[in-house]
């Protein structure tokens, strides 16, 4: 999943919203987006309407620790960038529109506050980020490259900076940075244009250092109304200072046991202060603090505390706050444009956002104002119709219950295309991944079948399954039948994945199993057949799958185990605990034969589809992200095409000849095989339609028996993946005729509702659309088009209006895939060939191919000889090839008459589809619903290593250049010209310029 590959994620969130314990929040200047960071490291983007309704749109992944602060990182409104910092020192620059990560870096120290600062040198404007944190300076960081430029340093008693504020001066070019250190010393730095231009790491020393005795300072803010006072909020009191000479104007201590966490000026004479438990208070400042008053500074130098200023407003906290697990985050923001909201925003540990619009006119009596709008992530999920789907919801809703059983652990086996899902009731479901994803995402006849697709249930754990491992996937030294699972019932169970049998149950731990790990290759042979299990009682065990016993149990660690490392050469197991301590254990193997493996394993090539389970918090159920690697899909399609018998061979003449010649031989056999395959398939389907979730033993046994036949339901993984992918990407509803062809001839399916896509950007950072994105998209588009739209109006095409980067990725994928499919014979997703993969060559590693087939004996072997032939076919490639060739021959005979015309229609269908996405989309959608692709992203793929992607990028780039016209092309050139090397002489470059335009 490197940045270079074209990988598209599709996410199935499920009904439970991810945990979002808010640690920091930010409102963008235009008041259209709120950004929240959480303790688990994710960032959530919320759309806000002018009526102050908010709706979560996307979640950004990439930070590994709690988000400590957020700040805007660009000044202009057409480029909305934010910067986020985490507890582990990471800093990340994001594009708010599509959640792309623009830049990222990691420092040794953590920031706790970042402020954006823009300065001007001549005509050039540059953005800087001032950062304070667990270090004794203020670091000045470039807002686009995230490089540290220089630092603001203290000469006198340097210490950590608790809080800072930038005071912009309108009179001079000098801006002031005012900060309070943890020891309560006020520091002042002057930033002059000369300082800003400084590029070397010379420190800038403070202008002034004055103890103001404000320990535990929470916030410092400058009064933008009067330009002459500062508000400093500490946990036990808040104070107002003169911004000129920093003398104390008034001090107010809190009388109850709550502690203040921040505050802001909301008018020249009013401040709002909020507490740790989420209450906010508005105070009217005494006359001594108001520069307009004659009593200004009248109290300076007096030791006595002034009278407590009158409380104007009290903003009530909510009643359900007892559910919170940590103090909420409160912030105050001004809107700088109509309707000039004064907005108090609070985000809490339950992922809830609450907004209060503070009225300008205030009554004299203290009173409470009610919340303007409040919503939590979970509420937003609950409001959705249809509900946000989870990957196996159709198999998990028990009769008579609303909520599906939650998936708590999962693993995807790419070689078999199967997803293994452990659930909270202790059962484990094995299901074909593409099939179940199709059920969740797309409409089709499968909607009529209950319990579709055929699946297998493993029952053994008595409570939540916490981890699942398929060791064969990591190393072929393990039995390919073994599946290992761990649960909260302290047990580790070994299953036979093909029969569904429980092979062994290990009960060696005294706590919930938290991790299952495969030891590395070069361990001793005994350890090589073990899996390593880690439990919440801080113990780690080596469980031998072959001997069916625990060969080592290392316990008595004082802290939870975080990481396991191996020193196979010394027979050591190294345990890293959460407090940083490390324990080294001898694996005690008895026999000390080390095996040195010769040659490398066939490295896993890219899989067309990878299903990754994710959770933002350990307590959450799994959500599943389907990663489609476009290049891998294309390669697999082409490989299968190449393995398919040459179409020349199956031309009508050859067919007739072969049929005539081998009437008694091959084709008869093929006929029989085919018939049998078909019958078993029917049977399986029939059986699974009746599938009920009963707990009786007999039922289980019956199921186990029939699940043997389940394996016979073979489906073509590659074509299925392509079907799912193309159906999700196609812009439905723009061309009725094309849609009909897609549905009937090409076998694509229409999605139920707009699909939550994701966007992978630099360094593995990822943005995933929340299922609620469609609500805000709908609202946005309805506003743009001026008419009410329904959900079905934006199915499929809605994502082309999200952002330019998303459009680029989607168009590239859909066009390159359509082109690939166009070049294939019979590339349609309808018909029998979807059920059976063409024969594949054995893997280079020499492992027995097609694990699915091995136990796949038909239940009623009517003809033993025939069966033997099938079995043989499994192991000998040539025979399999002949076999499938005969099958294809047979199939072709059946559809001989319609064959030629179908192929033409299919081909034309793909070509039409590609053409629509390449050229017609901007016209069909209209520019208000279409964000054009990014030229630079297309240009970067001009020489992509995958020919199909390259061709798609070139076609798209040309189409886009044509669309933007001469003026657009000129703009593009002007935009990029400064970045071009200067060695071209001006005359020829002007010529070139004219030529390009």
């Amino acid at each position, binding site marked *: 999943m490197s940045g270079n590959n074209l990988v598209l994620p599709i996410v199935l969130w499920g009904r439970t919203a991810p945990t979002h314990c808010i640690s920091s929040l930010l409102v963008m200047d235009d008041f259209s987006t709120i950004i929240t960071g959480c303790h688990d490291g994710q960032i959530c983007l919320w759309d806000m309407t002018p009526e102050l309704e908010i709706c979560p749109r996307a979640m950004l992944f990439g930070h590994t620790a709690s988000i400590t602060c957020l700040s805007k990182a660009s000044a202009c409104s057409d480029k909305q960038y934010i910067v986020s910092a985490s507890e582990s020192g990471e800093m990340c620059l994001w594009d708010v529109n599509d959640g792309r990560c623009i830049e990222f870096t990691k420092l040794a120290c953590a920031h706790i506050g970042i402020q954006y600062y823009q300065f001007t040198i001549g005509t050039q404007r540059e953005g800087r980020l001032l950062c304070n944190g667990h270090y004794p300076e203020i670091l000045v960081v470039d807002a686009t490259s995230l490089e540290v430029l220089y630092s603001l340093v203290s000469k006198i008693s340097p210490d950590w900076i608790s809080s800072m504020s930038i005071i912009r001066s309108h009179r001079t070019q000098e801006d002031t940075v005012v900060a309070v250190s943890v020891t309560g010393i006020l520091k002042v730095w002057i930033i002059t244009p000369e300082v800003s231009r400084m590029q070397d790491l010379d420190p800038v020393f403070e202008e002034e250092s004055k103890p103001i005795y404000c320990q535990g300072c929470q916030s410092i803010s400058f009064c933008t109304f009067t330009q002459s006072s500062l508000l400093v909020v500490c946990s036990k009191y808040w104070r107002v200072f003169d911004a000129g000479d920093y003398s104390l104007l008034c001090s107010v201590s809190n009388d109850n046991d709550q502690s203040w966490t921040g505050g802001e000026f909301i008018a020249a004479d009013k401040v709002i202060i909020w507490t740790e438990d989420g209450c906010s208070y508005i105070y009217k400042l005494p006359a001594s603090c108001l520069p307009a008053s004659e009593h200004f500074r009248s109290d300076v130098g007096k030791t006595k505390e002034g009278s407590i200023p009158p409380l104007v407003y009290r903003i009530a906290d909510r009643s359900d706050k007892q559910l919170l697990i940590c103090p909420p985050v409160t912030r105050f923001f001004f809107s700088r444009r109509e309707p000039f909201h004064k907005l108090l925003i609070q985000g809490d540990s339950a992922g809830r956002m609450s907004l209060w619009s503070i009225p300008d006119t205030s009554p004299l009596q203290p009173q409470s104002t009610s919340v303007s709008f409040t919503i939590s992530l979970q509420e937003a999920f609950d409001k959705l119709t249809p509900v946000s789907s989870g990957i196996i919801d159709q198999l998990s809703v028990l009769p008579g219950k609303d909520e599906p059983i939650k998936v708590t652990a999962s693993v995807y086996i790419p070689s078999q295309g199967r997803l293994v899902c452990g659930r909270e009731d202790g059962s484990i479901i094995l299901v074909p991944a593409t099939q179940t994803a199709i059920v969740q995402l797309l409409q089709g006849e499968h909607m009529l079948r209950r319990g579709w697709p055929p699946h297998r249930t493993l029952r053994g754990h008595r409570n939540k399954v916490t981890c699942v491992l398929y060791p064969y996937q990591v190393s072929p030294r393990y039995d390919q039948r073994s599946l290992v699972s761990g649960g909260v019932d302290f047990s580790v169970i070994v299953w036979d994945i093909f029969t569904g049998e429980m092979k062994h149950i290990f009960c060696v731990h005294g706590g919930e199993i938290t991790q299952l790990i495969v030891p590395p290759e070069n361990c001793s042979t005994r350890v090589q057949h073990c899996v390593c299990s880690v439990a919440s009682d801080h113990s780690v065990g080596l469980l031998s799958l072959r001997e069916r016993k625990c060969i080592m149990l290392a316990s008595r660690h004082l802290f939870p185990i975080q990481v396991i490392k191996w020193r196979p050469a010394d027979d050591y197991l190294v345990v890293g605990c959460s*407090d*940083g301590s490390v324990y080294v254990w001898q694996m005690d193997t008895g026999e000390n034969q080390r095996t040195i493996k010769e040659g490398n394993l066939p490295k896993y090539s890219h899989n067309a589809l990878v299903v990754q389970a994710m959770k933002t918090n350990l307590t959450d159920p799994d959500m599943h992200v389907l990663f489609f690697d476009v290049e891998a899909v294309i390669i697999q399609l082409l490989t299968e095409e190449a393995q398919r018998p040459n179409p020349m061979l199956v031309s009508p003449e050859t067919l007739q000849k072969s049929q005539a010649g081998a009437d008694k031989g091959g084709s008869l056999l093929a006929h029989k095989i085919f018939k049998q395959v078909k019958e078993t398939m029917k049977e399986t389907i029939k059986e699974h339609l009746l599938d009920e979730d009963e707990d009786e033993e007999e039922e289980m046994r019956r199921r186990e028996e029939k699940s043997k036949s389940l394996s016979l339901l073979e489906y073509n993984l590659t074509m299925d993946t392509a079907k799912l992918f193309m159906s999700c990407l196609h812009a439905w509803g723009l061309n009725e005729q094309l849609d009909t062809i897609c549905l009937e001839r090409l076998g694509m399916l229409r999605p139920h509702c707009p699909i939550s896509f994701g966007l992978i950007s630099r360094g593995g950072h990822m943005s995933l659309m929340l299922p609620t994105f469609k609500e805000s998209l709908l609202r946005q588009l309805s506003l743009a088009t001026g008419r009410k739209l329904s959900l079905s109006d934006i199915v499929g095409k809605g994502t082309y209006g999200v952002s330019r980067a998303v459009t680029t990725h989607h168009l590239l994928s859909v066009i390159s895939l359509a082109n690939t499919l166009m070049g294939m014979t019979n590339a349609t997703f309808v018909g029998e060939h979807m059920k059976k993969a063409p024969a594949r060559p054995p893997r280079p590693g020499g492992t027995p191919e097609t694990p699915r087939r091995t136990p796949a004996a038909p239940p009623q072997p009517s003809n033993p000889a025939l069966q033997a032939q099938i079995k043989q076919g499994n192991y000998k490639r040539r025979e399999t090839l002949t076999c499938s060739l005969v099958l294809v021959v047979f199939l072709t005979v059946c559809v001989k008459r319609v064959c030629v015309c179908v192929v033409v229609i299919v081909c034309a269908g793909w070509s039409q589809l590609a053409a629509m996405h390449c050229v017609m989309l901007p016209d069909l959608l209209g520019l208000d619903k279409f964000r054009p692709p990014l030229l630079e992203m297309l240009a970067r793929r001009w020489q992509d290593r995958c020919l199909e992607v390259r061709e798609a990028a070139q076609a798209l780039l040309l189409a886009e250049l044509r669309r933007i016209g001469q003026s657009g092309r000129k703009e593009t050139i002007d935009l990029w010209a400064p970045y071009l090397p200067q060695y071209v002489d001006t005359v020829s470059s002007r010529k070139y310029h004219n030529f390009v335009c």
Partner: protein
Amino acid sequence: MLNPQRSLSELPKTSTASQVERVVLEEEFNWLLKEEVHAVLKQLQDVLKEASRRFSMPTPGFENQLKQENFILGSSTSMDQVKGVLTLQGEVLTQADINLKVAKSSQVLHFQFREDKQWKLQQIQDARNHVNQALQLLSSRDESYHFKSGAEVNKLMDGVMLQLTRARNRLTTPASMTLPELAASGLMKMFSPPIPGDVMVNFYINLSKLCLTVYQLHVLPPNTTKNFKPAGSSVLHSPGAMFELNNNRFEVSHVHKVECVVPWLSDTLVFFTISLQLCQQLKDKISVFSSFWNYRPF
């Protein structure tokens, strides 16, 4: 250890907690939240206050002035080539007195801090600040506070443990620097008489030890045949490490490391370890009930 061979049929009998058990569990859990948590928090606070106090010991008699302590640095390996007496006041080195015996000339170099200069040990300041932050987190949850869920306690403990781990790590892992960084650190300009150009010094804390490293350098002639490879960043560079500074190439010829245990730092490290264990034990107690409260909305 439980018997792994135990048959399946025995397991379900012990699986689901009965109604009575649940009631008892709930009572026990409530006791934990109401009583035990506060007892542990109190204990934690006491330990951490003690740790925090170590960072700001006042001078007897002058309560508003931090205590000054002298440390004589020595080493078991280097043959008394470097002797140092350092004066530590809280987190600040107020005086350093270094004697360096140059090997070849048997000449003794002596230098000390200039009158107007002090050197702050950032590691100590960071550790102190982290402890104070942990204390601040704890102080907001005094006995009158009613914890409503185990998750809330866990969250608080996570916050406290993060600060404590940081504090400990700051003392146990000194910053690793490159030699040019060290040369530019300002430490070289602190001394009187000025340190000669072929000597560099560094101060840091490693666990509870105050360390002084002295590097003796020699200039590599420009036409040397030796492969020049600049050394990366390290806490302690070894002889042979090379670097470039102001167009001159240097090689470290001798490294002398002397150290001395600061007793109050070893106290604080012990306090950190004790508090971390207290935190984890509380978390473990909560986690016993985790499967129990999983069934409840929170």
